[in-house]
């Protein structure tokens, strides 16, 4: 029986700090649901902070030099914690460093909550087996759709349904670019420049605009929610860079617009990310940086969820809900 839940945060960038802040700020509400907890370790590239009695607000102010020397792997091996929140940057080719972190945490019997797509894309079934063998849970709501509920929605609330297909807008950057091209009749490059200025697109936007990020999410959805066993290479990928303002013009004449859609369908066997024509009245025709997903099931039929796909607080929402799911009293 755990008396105080000990939490380790691995990766202390925007997301890691966001989660720590929510854990400190909403401590009372969360403790009402799961019991007492404390953050015992924070791991960064530059070093670590560890206190078995718990770290407080001071941890949020820590920068590079404030951390003590030590590696994340040392903390995972030596420190005592019940759940690791793994939020290091994603590498969808090798899955590292997250893959090593998650494997070692599960191996030592710690639950893992992650927002990191890479390890799941590379080794989903292996990690799930590892979790089962060690009788712990691997939770990853934050990997798909950020603050928009999807993983637990399907697993818990749609339990008993057969999932026929899941498809939708899985990347807010692409959706911003496409919906601005639609409304302002601007070129792809004009909107991309604007999106970079607003911090919506990265300096190197390849990962988003080429459909790579969406494809990684398609892999997670297929494996985790449709019980498939697929890899990144199984997904057909087409990005949004070739889309012109005239394409929107022609589409709009028939009341269509264009969105980048990730699709997993059992019926058609389709596993793809591609720009698609959709009716402007379709629930997936959302604008701005929103994400939207349509889940097609045998019993409940169609369910649509719309929400914010990225952001510090939004991602924290998904991580905190995973934490509550694991330790719910």
């Amino acid at each position, binding site marked *: 029986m755990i008396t105080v839940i000990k939490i380790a945060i691995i990766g202390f960038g925007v997301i890691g700090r966001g989660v720590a802040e929510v854990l400190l700020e909403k401590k009372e509400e969360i403790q009402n649901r799961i019991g007492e907890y404390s953050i015992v370790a924070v791991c960064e590239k530059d070093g670590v902070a560890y206190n078995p009695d718990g770290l407080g607000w001071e941890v949020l102010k820590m920068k590079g030099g404030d951390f003590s020397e030590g590696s994340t792997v040392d903390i995972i091996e030596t420190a005592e914690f019940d759940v690791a929140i793994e939020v290091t940057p994603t590498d969808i080719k090798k899955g590292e460093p997250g893959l090593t972190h998650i494997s070692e945490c599960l191996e030592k019997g710690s639950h893992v909550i992650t927002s990191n797509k890479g390890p799941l894309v590379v080794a989903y079934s292996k990690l799930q087996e590892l979790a089962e063998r060690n009788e712990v849970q691997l939770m990853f709501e934050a990997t798909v759709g950020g603050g928009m509920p999807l993983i637990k929605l399907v697993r818990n609330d749609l339990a008993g349904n057969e999932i026929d297909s899941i498809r939708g807008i899985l990347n807010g950057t692409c959706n911003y670019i496409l919906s601005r091209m639609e409304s302002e009749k601007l070129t792809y490059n004009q909107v991309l420049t604007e999106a970079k200025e607003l911090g919506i697109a990265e300096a190197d936007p390849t990962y988003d605009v080429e459909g790579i990020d969406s494809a990684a999410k398609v892999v997670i959805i297929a494996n985790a929610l449709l019980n498939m066993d697929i890899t990144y290479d199984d997904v057909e990928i087409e990005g949004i860079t070739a889309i012109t303002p005239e394409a929107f013009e*022609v589409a709009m*004449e028939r009341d269509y617009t264009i969105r980048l859609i990730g699709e997993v369908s059992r019926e058609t066997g389709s596993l793809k990310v591609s720009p698609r024509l959709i009716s402007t009245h379709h629930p997936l025709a959302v604008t701005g940086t929103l994400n939207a997903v349509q889940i097609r099931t045998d019993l409940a039929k169609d369910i649509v969820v719309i929400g914010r796909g990225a952001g510090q607080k939004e991602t924290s929402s998904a991580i905190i809900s995973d934490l509550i799911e694991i330790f719910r009293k």
Partner: protein
Amino acid sequence: MAIVSIVVELKDQPGQLLRALEPISRYGGNILGILHQREKMTPLKIIPVEISIKIDENRVEDMINAIKENGVNVRSYNEIRLVATTSALLVGHIIHTDLSDTVRKIDKTGYAEVIDMHINMPQLNEPSTAMITISATGKEKLQDAMKLLNEVCRNKDILVIEPLNEEY
């Protein structure tokens, strides 16, 4: 809707074609193509002319009868019932890469036809856009036609934006 291909026999004289076409328009048929098979002209100077028509499938018989009543010999006709239709956007150098070849590849399947096309060309040498509508004899055939379209366009570096609706 159906696509009907009729072969009529016309004398090589002015005004002949009109006698075949008038009933088609009277029955609301949309003429997709007319092909004079001059190389098949008979010794009596009769030319087989193939006319492709898109028409309400319930009016095919009446239209054929009306053509016959106009004094035109209908050598043969065959009908493709098109029950599934979808549209897709093509973006790229559609014209430079021989649009008619792309359309012909679909039409040659025998089970699918390009029934409508709307092209937007912004400037010379800039990518253009076409909304292409394809009908086929069934859902599966339509999927096959879309696969073929994707294949042809991939080779020509044209982006195909397919619809999301599953009413394939």
